[in-house]
């Protein structure tokens, strides 16, 4: 019986968990972490079950309140949802585990219950976005996740975090408003909010300026959410000043769900024929993504702060995903979707490591990391693996998505993007190698000597997620056919054969 209701339970569970955490935190703060952890773990299991169901029987539909789709709200889970949901919840479990230790040093102890509550609310929002088949419902859950994200950025002790959070809030709200406008325009000309229904009703209206405007609003709105190049200004500060565990969540979960929403709207609400033929926006979109790939990397090279460098690197890497999607060739889209997993794994690992450095030695600056590999060997080794993956050294995951996106660009005859992707690998190598060189091949500077020599690998609770993700960087690279088996049917479904 329960099995039929998993699509909704995966969203309601963290909601209930959030309330429970809040109330439990009243009694005893130590109860919060187990509740949050248990919630995410159960969710992750649910997502795996859902994924296997989808793979066996095709898309799952769930009518909330037993109302049929265009009238009620519908949950739809297909391969893309299932995949994204599983990826996100995998990272949630690890981030939650990581947060247990790392957050203690970064926020006031009495804020811990609220932290876990907001974390679970974030998960609620994100999962809601992932499974919904209704546009307005997507907006509502987008707001839940956004509000939670603003709060998590501001939760730390640094006062600069408040400004970052405010900027994030303003940008996020503009983005939400644009999405709301997009939904409004679509609703006015079609009368429905259900995604599948819209996809059915829209084709005769493709010439309408309203539909095209709606499309542009969706693109702009979600581009802000995913920090596409000229709209990325909120991102570096938000990543830099939030507590480490939060940075991990932002970079792996919040940004990925934005991309998911974009894919969903591009390919499931509007059809590929619309985005490729009827409206030349995608051309611009691809160029912006290419600018993000190069620009993000170039700015990252100039950074002295590790977390900020990783943040700019995120801008660049999100560019890969968006480029893959923007090219709208089946192979490139496969690569783009694959990069959702890959980037989540790599960047999650890297931000966790950056957090571990701060936790054990208090060092944030790249230059001060000299010689830290000697005292934190495992962490440093994980960094090397994740960095190699970011650069795209085979057989890590980063290589695989680059391969697909570049191949897709090649196949659609867009040589310039192939060169962009390859050139960016080099730029990525420049800024990651700088860090590796400092970590391994230099003596500590006197000012930080004490901090470096007394540093140790972080406690198991933090180290375990780092190592799991580092291992995932390699394993998913070698066994890339596992995620591909999920992605390819989806891409084939919307774009035709591969």
């Amino acid at each position, binding site marked *: 019986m329960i099995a039929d209701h998993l699509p909704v339970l995966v969203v309601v569970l963290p*909601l209930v968990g*959030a*309330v429970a955490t*809040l109330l439990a*935190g*009243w009694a005893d703060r130590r109860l919060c972490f187990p509740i949050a952890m248990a919630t995410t773990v159960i969710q992750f299991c649910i997502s795996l079950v859902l994924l296997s169901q989808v793979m066996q029987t095709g898309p799952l539909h769930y009518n*909330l*309140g037993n*109302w049929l789709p*265009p*009238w*009620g*709200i519908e949950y739809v889970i297909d391969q893309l949802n299932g995949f994204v949901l599983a990826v996100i919840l995998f990272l949630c479990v690890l981030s939650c585990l990581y947060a247990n230790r790392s957050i203690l040093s970064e926020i006031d102890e*009495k*804020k811990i*219950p*609220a*932290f876990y*509550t*907001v974390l679970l*609310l974030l998960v*609620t*929002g994100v999962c*809601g976005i992932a499974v919904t088949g*209704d546009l*307005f*419902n997507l907006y*509502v*859950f987008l*707001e*839940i996740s956004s*509000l*939670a994200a*603003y*709060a998590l950025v*501001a*939760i730390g002790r640094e006062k600069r975090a408040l400004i970052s959070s405010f900027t994030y809030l303003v940008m996020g709200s503009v983005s939400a408003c644009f999405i709301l*406008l997009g939904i409004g*325009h679509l*609703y*006015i*000309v*079609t*009368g*429905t*909010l259900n995604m599948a229904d819209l996809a059915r009703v829209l084709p005769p209206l493709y010439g*309408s*300026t*309203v539909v*095209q*405007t*709606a499309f*542009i*609003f969706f693109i702009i709105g979600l581009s802000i959410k995913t920090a596409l190049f000229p709209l990325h200004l909120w991102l570096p500060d938000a990543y830099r000043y939030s507590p480490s565990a939060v940075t991990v969540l932002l970079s792996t979960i919040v940004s990925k769900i934005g991309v998911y929403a974009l894919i969903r709207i591009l390919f499931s609400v509007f059809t590929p024929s619309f985005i490729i033929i009827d409206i030349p926006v995608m051309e611009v979109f691809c160029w912006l993504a290419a600018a993000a790939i190069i620009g993000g990397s170039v700015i990252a090279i100039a950074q002295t702060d590790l977390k900020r460098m990783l943040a700019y690197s995120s801008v660049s890497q999100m560019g890969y995903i968006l480029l893959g999607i923007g090219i709208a060739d089946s192979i490139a889209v496969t690569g783009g979707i694959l990069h959702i997993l890959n980037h989540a794994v790599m960047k999650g690992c890297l931000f966790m490591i950056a957090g571990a450095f701060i936790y054990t030695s208090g060092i944030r600056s790249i230059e001060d990391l000299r010689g830290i590999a000697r005292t934190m060997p495992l962490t440093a080794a994980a960094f090397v693996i994740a960095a190699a993956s970011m650069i795209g050294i085979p057989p890590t995951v980063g290589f695989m998505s680059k391969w697909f996106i570049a191949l897709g660009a090649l196949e659609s005859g867009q040589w310039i993007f192939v060169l962009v992707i390859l050139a960016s690998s080099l730029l990525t190598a420049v800024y990651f190698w700088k860090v590796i060189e400092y970590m391994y091949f230099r003596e500590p500077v006197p000012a930080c000597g004490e901090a470096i020599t007394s540093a140790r690998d972080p406690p198991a609770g933090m180290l375990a997620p780092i190592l799991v993700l580092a291992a995932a960087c390699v394993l998913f690279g070698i066994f890339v056919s596992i995620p591909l088996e999920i992605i390819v049917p989806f891409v084939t479904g919307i774009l035709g054969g591969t």
Partner: protein
Amino acid sequence: MKLWALVSVLLVGLLLLWAEGDIPSFGDASAPSYNYVADRYITDAYNDTATKNMVTAILADYRGYDTLGELTVIFTAGVVVLLLLRRGGRL
């Protein structure tokens, strides 16, 4: 900053104006939004839910899940403001 604001505002404005040409006119009863999903709500809401107020019927029943989400939003806001501003007391 001001210049950028003006440029982006003008761009958005132009986009919106461009779109409004194809929008059904104000108060048009033949608009698609009125005749598809909403139509069913208007005709069946009372039979389905025994609620005279269609807005309530949709809010709490047809699209009740949205409302749950909305409640979660406001709950989130409550917790967040609590988290950000409460200085002394326990949560």
